[in-house]
C-alpha cells in the first residue's frame, strides 16, 4: 500500500472517529438535559451531597450495606 493511500485512510479514520465522539458526547448532553426537563431524573439534587454531608444526615439515595444489617 502506498504512503498516500495510508495517509488517506488515516485522514478518513480521524474524521469519523472525531464525528463518532462528537455524536456520543452531544447525545449524552442532550439526554441528561432531556431527562432533567421531563422529570425522569433530577441531576441537580446531587449538589445536596455536599450541603448535607454530616454522618447522621439521611442519605440522598440510601445504599444497602451488609454492616448496617448486622446492627
Amino acid at each position: 500500500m502506498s504512503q498516500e493511500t495510508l495517509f488517506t485512510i488515516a485522514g478518513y479514520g480521524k474524521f469519523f472517529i472525531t464525528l463518532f465522539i462528537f455524536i456520543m458526547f452531544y447525545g449524552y448532553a442532550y439526554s441528561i438535559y432531556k431527562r432533567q426537563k421531563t422529570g425522569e431524573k433530577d441531576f441537580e439534587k446531587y449538589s445536596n451531597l455536599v450541603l448535607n454531608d454530616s454522618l447522621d444526615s439521611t442519605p440522598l439515595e440510601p445504599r444497602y450495606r451488609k454492616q448496617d444489617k448486622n446492627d
Partner: protein
Amino acid sequence: MQSNAQLEYDYSVVKLFTFATILFGIIGMTIGVIIAFQLAFPELSNLAGEYGTFSRLRPLHTNGVAFGFTLSGIFATWYYVGQRTLKMSLKESKFLMRVAKLHFWLYFITILLAVVTLISGYTTSKEYAELEWPLDLLVVVWWVLWGVAMFGMIGMRRERAIYVSIWYYMSSFLAIAMLYIFNNMEVPTIFWSGDAPSSIMHSISMYSGTNDALVQWWYGHNAVAFVFTTPIIGIIYYFLPKESGQPVFSYKLSVLAFWGLMFVYLWAGGHHLLYSTVPDWMQTMGSAMSVVLILPSWGSAINMLLTMKGEWQQLQTSPLIKFMILASTFYMLSTIEGPIQAIKSVNAIAHFTDWIPGHVHDGTLGWVGFMIIAGLYHMAPRMYKREIYSKKLMDTQFWLQTTGIVLYFTSMWIAGITQGMMWRAYDDYGSLLYSFIDTVEVLHPYYTLRGIGGLFYLTGFFMFAFNMYKTATSGRVLDKEPANASPMA
C-alpha cells in the same frame, strides 16, 4: 439505616497529610525562590558546591511542589471529601484505616528519599519523572494503597450516588497509574552491565529517541492534567459550595465537563513537541486538542463562578471565598493561555522561552496553590474543632500572594515574548541580530521581579503555615461543627 449519632468522621490521616502539605510546600517553594534568584544572580549558584547548583535544585523544586505539596494536598482533601460525600467513616474499617496510614507513611518516606536522591544527583533526566527506579517502585506501592483505600471507601458508602468530586479523584488515580507505569519503563543497568561500571541508582529508558519524547510528553502533560487539574477541580466542587452554602450552579454541566476533560486531555501532550521530530499529524492533533480543551475547562470554571450567583457579597466578607474565586479565575486564565501557546504560530515564539514557566506558575500558584490552601483552611475548624486563628492574617496572605503571582506571570510574559522575538530577529542578510547573552542581559530585571514575586508568595505561605499551626493549637474551641462558612477570629 444504622444510627450514626455515635459515629464520627476520622480525620487522623487528613491531619497527617495536612502536615505533609505544609512541610513539602515550604521546602518546594523555598527552593523555587532560591532558583529564581539564581537565574537573576548566577553567583548564588556557587554557595553550596554541587548541591546548590540550579541543575540539582530545579528537579527538587518541581518534584517538591508537584509530588510533595500538591499530592499531599490532594490526599488530605481526598480522605476528607471522600468520607463526607460517601457518608462513611474510616473508623468503621480497621483495614482501610491501616491502609490509609500505610499510604501516608510510605508516601512520606518516598518524598523524603526523593529529596535526598535528587540533591545527590540521582536522576533519570526525564522531566517530572526524575526519580530513579527503586523510588518508582515505592511510588507504585503507595499509589496502589491509595487505590485500595479509595475503592474500599467507595465500597463501604451509605450514599448510592457518587458525588462529582469523587469522579475527579478517581480519574486522577486511574490516569496517573497508567501514565506513570508507561513513562517509567526503565532498565536498571546494574543487572545487565556486566563488568562495565554501573550503579544500583541508574537506569535507562526502555524507549529511545522520538518515541521516548512522545511517551515522556504524553506523561508530562497529563501530570498537569491529573495532578494539577482534575483532583483540584474535585477539590473546588466540594469546598466552594460547602463554604458558601450554595448548591453547584449546574450539576449537569459538572458531569459534562468531566467527560469532556477526560476525553480531550489525554491527546493534548503533543503540543510540547511542536516543531520537533514527531510526526506532523501528532503535532497538529496536540494543537487542536489543546484548543478544544478550553471548553471543558471553562465549563467547570464558569460553573464555579456562577455557583456564587446572588452571593457575591461573600467575596467581601470571607477571605476563604476570595481564595477559591481567584483560584477559579486563574484556572480560566491558564486554560486560555495554554491553548494559545499550543497554536503552532504562537508556539514558534513561545517555545523554550520564559513565557512557559510564566504560564505554568499562574496555574500552579493561582489555581492549585490557592485551592489547596483554601481546602486546608476550610478543613481546619472541622479537624481541630477550633476557630481559624486569624482572619486578618489570612486576608493579608491572600493579597500578598496575589501580588506575588501577578508579579511572577507578568514579568515572565514580558521576558518570554522579548526572548522569543530576539531569538528570531535577523537583518536584511539573514544574520541573527542578537547573541544568546544579549537576551540574558535584557531579561535580568524581569528575572529579579520573578524572584520577588516568588518571595511574596513564599512569605504568604509561611503566614498560612503559622495560621494553621495557631489554629490547631490555640484557636478558640468550637462547641459544634460549622455547617458552611468557616469561623475565623
